[in-house]
């Protein structure tokens, strides 16, 4: 397996881009939050947060699981298998776990997506014209519901083909056309809180809702982030540098995903 190495400062352990992404995403989560997690990096990040700074964080899976603790080395293949239910507090029908979003019990939804645009809209449905698509992707699943009803964190590799000026299809709404357009569409709550990548942590301008660099990953410049983005980012004058992954975080992550299914 080829290892996709990021370039850490000289005095830290080496880590992969996926590990960096996972660890950065875990740090955005706060103790006591209720978090809708997906599979792969989002689940690893939520579990890592539980084992570091957020022991009271509750995970929800859209398969209908409230508060599980995932067994290291036994990551579930989707959010709908029995591995998701390990040490759960409660199992409910899918519709009811999704309705927790609508009722307002969920602090954070954790998402990926094939494409994201300058307003944080996500596409996981079609590449190209939806009537004659170049690629039919798997679709929304619960993504649209999570993005419509809760604040979301998007964790994704930072590539120009993913960060596009306008998504081919809005599967999961971010800030739609910016400004107050999201609320005007009937979505008064939620929105994209943070986009976490292997190059930067990004937020959104409070008024225009345009994507902005909030912090740079260690060893990365703002120019590099801009060069890997298909639209103009808002770049403040002083952009802080994020802390590199610690040895403790890396060790926990190795233990959770020993086969490196998601953190290669």
């Amino acid at each position, binding site marked *: 397996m080829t290892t996709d190495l990021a370039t850490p400062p000289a005095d830290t352990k080496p880590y992969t881009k996926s590990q960096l992404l996972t660890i950065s995403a875990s740090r955005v989560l706060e103790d006591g939050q209720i978090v809708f997690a997906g*599979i*792969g990096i989002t689940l690893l990040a939520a579990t890592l947060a539980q084992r570091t700074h957020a022991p009271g964080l509750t995970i929800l899976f*859209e*398969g*209908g*699981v409230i508060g599980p603790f995932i067994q290291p080395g036994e990551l579930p*293949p*989707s*959010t*709908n*298998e*029995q*591995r*998701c*239910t*390990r040490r759960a507090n409660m*199992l*409910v*029908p*899918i*519709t009811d776990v*999704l*309705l927790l*979003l*609508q009722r307002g019990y969920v602090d954070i939804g954790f998402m990926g997506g094939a494409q994201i645009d300058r307003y944080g809209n996500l596409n996981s*449905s079609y590449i190209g014209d*939806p009537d*004659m*698509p*170049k*690629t*039919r*992707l*798997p*679709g*929304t*699943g*619960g*993504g*649209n*519901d999570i993005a*419509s*009803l809760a604040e979301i964190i998007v964790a994704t590799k930072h590539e120009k083909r993913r960060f596009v000026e306008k998504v081919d*299809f*809005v*599967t*999961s*709404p971010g800030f*739609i056309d910016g400004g107050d*357009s*999201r609320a005007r*569409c*009937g*979505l*008064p709550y939620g929105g994209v809180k943070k986009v976490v990548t292997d190059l930067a942590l990004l937020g959104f301008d409070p008024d225009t809702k345009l994507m902005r660099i909030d912090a740079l990953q260690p060893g990365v410049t703002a120019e590099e982030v801009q060069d890997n983005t298909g639209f103009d980012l808002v770049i403040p004058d002083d952009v802080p540098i994020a802390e590199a992954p610690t040895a403790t975080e890396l060790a926990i992550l190795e233990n959770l995903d020993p086969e490196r*299914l998601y953190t290669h």
Partner: protein
Amino acid sequence: MAVTPYETIRERTRARDRSLTEKVMSFEEAAALVKDGDHVALGGCTLSRTPIAAIWALIRAGRKDLVLSRSITSNEGDLAYVSGLSSHIMTSWFAQGIVWGLSKVMRAYTESGRAEFEEWSHMAMGLRYRAGAMGVPFMPARSMMGSNVLDRVAGTKEMDCPFTGERLLLLPALNPDVALIHVQRCDAYGNAQIDGLQFMDIDIAMAANRVIITTERIVSNDQIRRAPDQTKIPFFTVDAVVEAPYGSAPHECYGVYEPFFNELDAYAKITATEGEEGVRKYLDRCFYEPEDWAGYLSHIGVADILDAAKRGRRVYDD
């Protein structure tokens, strides 16, 4: 898909035999309850409690042109497209599973326009079944608005709430002609007990006009009555009970077996290298040629069955 008129729903329900009678039948007899063109809802989700045995029986019976609906669709969707069982699937997500990537077969059929993947949000699918289960024509919801997912589906309406003036989306009810649901235990009358994850199965059973239960085991009515809180689907909604051990293989059945990863890897390899032609051969080998359900399971093999069962029972370990 238009909302079924309330009068029709009531008439159909009135006409059904809702008595406490035995409904155990063969795969073939159960398949005969499904007509070409029916809307058939599938229970379970992704790789879990998928009614594979019932789908196997319908494909063998040569059923055509069903509209299939499910919360999330895995590789049973490929099998439906290639066999002709359905060229119209309503669901929120469609691929074998995240770890195997995109379905090449789904892509080939939908990108060429030979088949439809009608995409709704996960909660929208759930609320549509729930409306059907509740006997109301729609459910209001606060998702899907502002997205292109909403633009591509027919039959929804937006309204300003008569109480608060807020913008709401109205999702049309689904009342499937038939529901196929696989469970761990069921008695001869159709009292179905589900362990673990319930998915949308209870709403689907309540919404549908006919329900076919496949079950790992048929148990006595006495056993059901000893733990009635475990019964999730009541007998009077059920029209057929078919005993199908390992009836979700190669998918999982909570507490009985985990997914058959070797078989799923092999299937993913077939679709990746040979596409729909590979699925055609797979259907010949595993669906059309076996004499019976045991023949289907023989293709998976004893070693993999033991492995999946051993992993499956682990949910009961401390």
